């Protein structure tokens, strides 16, 4: 059994011999360390004055980018949010707006 792959050590500068056979990635949760937020072209911004903490947005996010702690949503995980805008659509209190750019 191979050791868990440290995805932070495989990057665009890695030589071919540091890459696993078949690019296999061992150990779960690698996506957490792999930041994909820069793919975004629009960025959600929450207006905390309007947010009622109804928590409808969190389960609708396809990228698990709306973290919840102690029953309250926190700010977006901009390292992984793709800017799809679903959260802005589902928020019943119009607390989320989409801004152009990252």
């Amino acid at each position: 059994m191979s050791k868990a792959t440290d995805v932070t050590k495989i990057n665009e500068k890695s030589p071919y011999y540091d890459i696993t056979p078949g690019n296999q990635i061992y150990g779960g949760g690698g996506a957490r360390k792999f930041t994909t937020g820069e793919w975004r072209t629009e960025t959600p911004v929450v207006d905390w004055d309007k947010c009622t903490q109804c928590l409808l947005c969190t389960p609708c996010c396809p990228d698990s980018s709306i973290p919840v702690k102690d029953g309250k949503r926190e700010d977006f995980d901009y390292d992984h949010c793709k800017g799809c805008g679903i959260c802005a659509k589902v928020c019943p209190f119009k607390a989320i707006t989409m801004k152009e750019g990252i």
Partner: protein
Amino acid sequence: MSIRERMSGNEAVAYAIRQVNPDVMAAFPITPSTEIPQMVSTFIANGDIDTEFIPVESEHSSMSATMGACAAGARAITATSSCGLAFMWEVLYVAASDRLPVVMAVVNRALTGPININCDHSDSMGARDSGWLQIYAETNQEAYDNYIQSFRIAEHPDVKLPMMVCQDGFITSHAVMNIELIEDEKVKSFVGSYEPENYLLNPEMPMAIGPYANSPFYMETKMNQRIAMKNAKKVILDVAKEFEKISGRSYGLFEEYHMEDAEYVIVIMGSAAGTTKDAVDELRAKGVKAGMIKVRVFRPFPGEELAAALKDAKAIAIMDRAESFSGMGGPLGSELKAALMDAGCKATVVNNFYGIGGRDYTVEDAEAIYNDLMEFEAGTKPFKQFRYIGLRK
């Protein structure tokens, strides 16, 4: 003691599958390979083996299911021919780049069109750049022996590549010949069990297979495949040596027939090597220094080794059983000529197409090729680089 039997090439491969008892077989029937999954299904129904058979609706699915099973941690196999192999195309490359050592019995048949069910090598030759190991058999015996060796080669840690074990459709797959089978226990202990280091169904270590790899990673992935392919040469020879101990039969990357002092040589693959050997025997009886090389392993391509074996030849005819429509040579011809050029070969070299779509290739055809080689070399007949053998004119 080995078991003396008579059987067809398809029966021989099915017999080997029964002995190996793989975890999973996913297959869709297509002539002339249909008998293999059919016979395996019978073994399963009779309780001889506990292979999980996945009946699928197409070859795209059979290759996907085989690959998926292998990724999960199973020893997984399939079988196909012709358009069935063509329908797997997309997935062939995925199995290779994901480094999944699945084993596929290929019963070579012409690709449509025009529609044709007879033997040529256009199916597996078309897949020659897919990253699969490819090994070819002359007889049912070789199909059986190659099949048993294939698991050790494909699954070797230095290789980890999928493998096609090829035999000629109908000529080998359906003709019944004598064969020496190896006892079940010996085959089982030779092949061993499949213990992948990492696999999807391992709860101790979750893993991802086949991640996105765009321009910063794609070339590095290909280099790793290339290295594995080159490593396979040594593994194939090592496995052959061990196989010889249990079978008494020896194998290399290719077979040399009367090559000690050969001046006129045919290089060929598959069942037509037997026909060519008869021609060599007849010419040798007349004092002609004829020889033959039968390429067994096409992927990895043993270019340097072949060039070394051909270094004393005066004239060479490379025989292709598949067109590649370059307007020049076929796959074997193009690759071998490149290797010969690198080695500084000064021989007269021609590249003939033969047996395409099941066209007969006879001992007389082979003798005529040797005679032409002598005449080309002597300059008594106008040189022709590329020819179709047996074409009506």
